[in-house]
């Protein structure tokens, strides 16, 4: 206390002009005691944030080095070759072509997205805009609960309930009629497992993710935008379609992309439903495989180091696909935002 008073009086000389400080006051020494906490806090958060970046690079590096052996042996065939034969026989040499897995991953995720995105966005719109307030909380809770159900449970439900139903009610009649002309729906329906059932179950799994994110994004739209639309005589539907959705377009795309990411990487449900065969069939009803399920199925009982390396290459490809799609999604969001938010003048 005494120190501060002496500084105050020393601030001015007799004429009332600023006096030169012989010793600077505490607040200008650059060593404020208040900021001691900031240093470890900053260091801690910086360290944790860089750990995330390091982790991504560590994973990529591990995938890169461990897949070296297979990549030097097979090159691009690992991605685009279609024969997968880990064990050498008299007729077939060892070969690792990951195309069936890559194709299966992309197709099943695409089917999931086509089914889930419109439904989930509609659910999000209902929850955010149209749902009576009494129902909003319980319904939102249920949707979030669906997102939390472990994938093995979706898999079990798919195997025992959905696949038998789908085979008899949809796949068989469809393959018997349309299947004769369109090879995508060709028979025979053996086990019922294949890309289309995988895609449908994946759709169910990503539906709650997209729906709840869409709802959150729509709730962020300022009420003034809705009121502006209502005040010019728009109906509820026009208000949602012309004011609310355009405002949150970027966020909705982000939600869909997050769902896509989940569909691409989903392992357990895909393994249980996809049929796990390395043969490529044009029919979506035929058994197939996905990258994630191939790695999960074979890595634990790989027969050689080359086999293991080839599986890691497939994992590497999956890593690349998700990275690439996420990057594309960022670009798309950036583009949409620039065209809706910005102040181009």
């Amino acid at each position: 206390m005494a120190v501060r008073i002496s500084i105050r009086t020393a601030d001015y000389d007799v004429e009332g002009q600023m006096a030169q400080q012989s010793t600077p006051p505490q607040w200008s020494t650059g060593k404020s005691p208040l900021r001691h906490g900031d240093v470890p806090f900053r260091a801690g958060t910086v360290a944790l944030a860089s750990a995330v970046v390091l982790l991504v690079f560590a994973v990529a590096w591990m995938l890169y080095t461990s897949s070296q052996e297979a990549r030097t042996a097979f090159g691009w065939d690992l991605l685009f070759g279609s024969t997968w034969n880990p064990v050498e026989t008299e007729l077939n040499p060892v070969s690792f072509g990951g195309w069936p897995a890559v194709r299966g991953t992309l197709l099943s995720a695409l089917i999931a997205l086509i089914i889930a995105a419109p439904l989930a966005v509609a659910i999000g719109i209902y929850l955010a805009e149209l749902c009576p307030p009494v129902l909003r909380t319980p319904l939102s809770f249920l949707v979030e609960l669906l997102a939390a159900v472990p994938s093995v449970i979706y898999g079990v439900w798919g195997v025992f309930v959905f696949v038998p139903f789908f085979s008899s009610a949809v796949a068989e009649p469809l393959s018997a009629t349309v299947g004769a002309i369109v090879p995508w729906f060709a028979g025979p329906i053996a086990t019922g497992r294949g890309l289309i059932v995988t895609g449908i179950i994946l759709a169910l799994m990503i539906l709650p993710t997209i729906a709840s994110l869409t709802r959150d994004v729509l709730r962020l739209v300022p009420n003034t935008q809705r009121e502006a639309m209502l005040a010019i005589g728009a109906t509820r539907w026009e208000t949602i379609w012309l004011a609310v959705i355009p405002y949150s377009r970027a966020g909705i795309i982000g939600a869909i992309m997050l769902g896509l990411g989940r569909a691409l990487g989903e392992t357990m449900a895909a393994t249980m439903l996809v049929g796990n065969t390395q043969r490529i069939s044009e029919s979506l009803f035929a058994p197939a495989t996905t990258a994630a399920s191939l790695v999960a199925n074979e890595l634990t009982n790989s027969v050689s180091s080359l086999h293991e390396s080839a599986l890691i290459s497939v994992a590497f490809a999956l890593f690349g696909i998700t990275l690439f799609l996420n990057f594309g999604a960022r670009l798309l969001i950036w583009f949409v935002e620039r065209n809706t938010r910005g102040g181009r003048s």
Partner: protein
Amino acid sequence: MERAMTLTRGIGFGELVGQRVKTGQLATVDANKIELRNFGFHYGSFQAIRNVSMSMPAHRVTAIIGPSGCGKSTLLRSINRMHDATEGARAEGELRLDGINVYDPSVDSVLLRRRVGMVFQRPNPFQLSIFENVAYGLRVLGIRNRTTLAERVEQSLRRAALWDEVKDRLHSSFGTALSGGQQQRLCIARAIATNPEVILMDEPCSALDPIASLKIEDLIYDLREQFTIIIVTHNMQQAARVSDITAFMLMNREKRYGELIESGPTDELFTKPSDKRTEDYISGQFG
């Protein structure tokens, strides 16, 4: 226009009253556009306003003044039923537009709002081009013809005194990129594009600087020839400058609801208010 300009040039009440309300000059003096009879409004168990009875004549500017929380915005928003989506919102009594109670079950609120436009406290343009901001209302009405749209947009922007400032960048510039005052005039253009009969303004100048506010006030004064304007304002000078009729509302301190203290021609209300509370308020004794 000249008259409007002289009115908005920083003048006191006395001066104002001396030269204003040349009512006879206005083209049409027809019946009351809006009439309220014992009108009240509730949000759930909370009664926001109660027992309001007044008339708002056609082709006049009616100002609703009063301190915060007295229910003036609620009253304004009841006229075009903006509260419809609010849970528990409910009206009582009568609010007649051209003799029809707007809370009658037979009234479609969407069609009502096409006759009663609104300008909000904060400018709320859409994140679209300047042109689309004005054209949106017309598209909602089902107008698709490009020439018609272009004509109506130009006409509305001219009437909102914004045309000259934006005519070169109608399509290249976003409505949200304009200055606050321009955004508010854009919102006025959007409101008048659909050709409503009544325009409600909820403190349209409260987010604007004094110069932008004066422009809006001039505009309001001009627009009353075509529209019936109801404006809510905190600013008593503004009410005195732009309005023909003023209604003063106050929160009833014991019963916690807003009520109408008095309403009447603006010059009378400001010079010889009939209620002591009005006099206290306009002379700045409270509120």
